[in-house]
């Protein structure tokens, strides 16, 4: 980065093979500055989820390093890393495991030792930011899918993360819920890394995109430029929806 500030996320030469021998990542390099919103694109099986699992230490690097706001992901830094990296899983039913929305949003902060008024403030604040404050005392399984997705975002916002990482946030959402989530994400002032197959969504929300293909970063640049490059997209099994065309601005 040109500026002297430490990036929110820095991944360097990250390689990983699953225990069964499948090599999923072959040396990933990327850097995301504070406050950036970046889309991570790539075909099925490219290694996107595998990469995401490294960002908060669920998987540990076979080779290479992951650094979050200057702090390397290691066994002894795990607690702080999990506070700094807010991971939103694809299926909100996996993310929302407590009996009520309030308890679920409180789960992360309480594990970090937050109590009392500060806890209450964080719960309300996080739910307010995703527009779900009125669901405070409802059980998560009574909410619609789109509402659950937004509450899932709130559960990690309450941990006041350095970077928010979302795996396929727009999957299974109807157009209205998809738009509402976009509004929520755009209104946040945190660094965002968003894994998605939804190219228009990436274009709408993320000024910058990375293409992960066969375990390496194959392209990195302004989303509009990458998506306008038909050859690049075709080479990595990426396709814009029917009837969708990008006119390069500028």
């Amino acid at each position: 980065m040109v500026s002297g500030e430490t990036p929110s996320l820095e991944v360097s030469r990250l390689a990983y093979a699953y225990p069964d021998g499948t090599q999923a990542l072959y040396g990933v390099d990327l850097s995301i500055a504070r406050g950036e919103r970046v889309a991570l694109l790539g075909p099925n099986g490219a290694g996107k989820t595998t990469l995401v699992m490294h960002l908060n230490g669920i998987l540990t690097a076979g080779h290479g390093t992951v650094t979050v706001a200057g702090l390397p992901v290691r066994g002894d830094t795990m607690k702080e890393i999990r506070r700094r990296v807010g991971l939103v899983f694809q299926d909100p039913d996996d993310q929302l495991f407590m009996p009520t929305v309030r308890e679920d949003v409180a789960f992360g902060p309480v594990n970090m030792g937050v109590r009392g008024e500060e806890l209450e403030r964080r719960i309300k604040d996080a739910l307010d930011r995703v527009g779900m404050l009125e669901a405070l005392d409802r059980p998560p399984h009574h909410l619609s899918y789109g509402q659950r997705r937004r509450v899932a975002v709130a559960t990690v916002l309450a941990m006041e993360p350095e970077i928010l990482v979302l795996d396929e946030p727009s999957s299974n959402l109807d157009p209205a819920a998809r738009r509402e989530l976009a509004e929520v994400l755009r209104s946040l002032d945190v660094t965002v890394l968003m894994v998605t197959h939804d190219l228009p969504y990436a274009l709408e929300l993320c000024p910058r995109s990375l293409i992960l293909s066969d375990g390496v970063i194959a392209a990195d640049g302004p989303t509009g430029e990458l998506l306008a490059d038909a050859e690049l997209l075709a080479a990595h099994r990426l396709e814009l929806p029917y009837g969708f065309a990008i006119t390069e601005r500028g």
Partner: protein
Amino acid sequence: MGAGHHHQIYRRDDTFVHRLPPHCKLLAVVAFAVVVVATPRELFAVFGVYALLLAVVAAAARVPPGFVLRRMVIEVPFVVFAVALPFIGLGERVSVAGMSLSVAGLWAAWNILAKATLGVVASMLLAATTEPRMILLGAQRLRLPSLLVQIAMFMLRYLDVILGEMRRMRVARESRGFAARDVRHIPVIARSAGALFIRSYERGERVHLAMLSRGYTGSMPVIQDVRASARQWATVALLPAVALAVLGAAVLGTGAL
């Protein structure tokens, strides 16, 4: 989609019984059950007083008798067992309506029926006046083994999800022409059950990852602390205390005779 959402045993209401802290109620029911179990089976009147006590609680909680009676089916196994006892019991026998019944068996049956009924009704009143998750909070507060509390908590949360998955699998089976009609279909159902188990297991793994990501280290944080005032403790203590007093008086009374 809405099926299974209502926890049918809980009656939403706002009586003072509903408002009592869950751990107090839990402890009161356990204490009451201990007193009931410790009561000698010969003391018919004492059991009558116990039943009266529960009736008072039910009235205070505005739980109608029919509501409790209809949910007594969980007691059926006990009833079956109890009914069998007079027939299979040994020793001295009496003749009732031409049937020869074992006296010891009759006493044992009465013993089981009376105590089980009182215990079940007391638990039912607890469940009717306390939301399931509040019961769990109470259990957590009473420092019951946290692993058990967590398992119960996840059952509560994921029951609907798993039922939903089960229903989708059934729809998928049936829309491809399969309908379970006789025993030859059992292998298919068994395979579906296996698939359901795998799905649930994998979901468990994913939930665990999600928990780790938010700093879980093995114990469930106490998020909503339930507290009880001395007055609330005194109120719930009334049920087991009165029961114990009646029992004490009866035992002393018969002892003095």
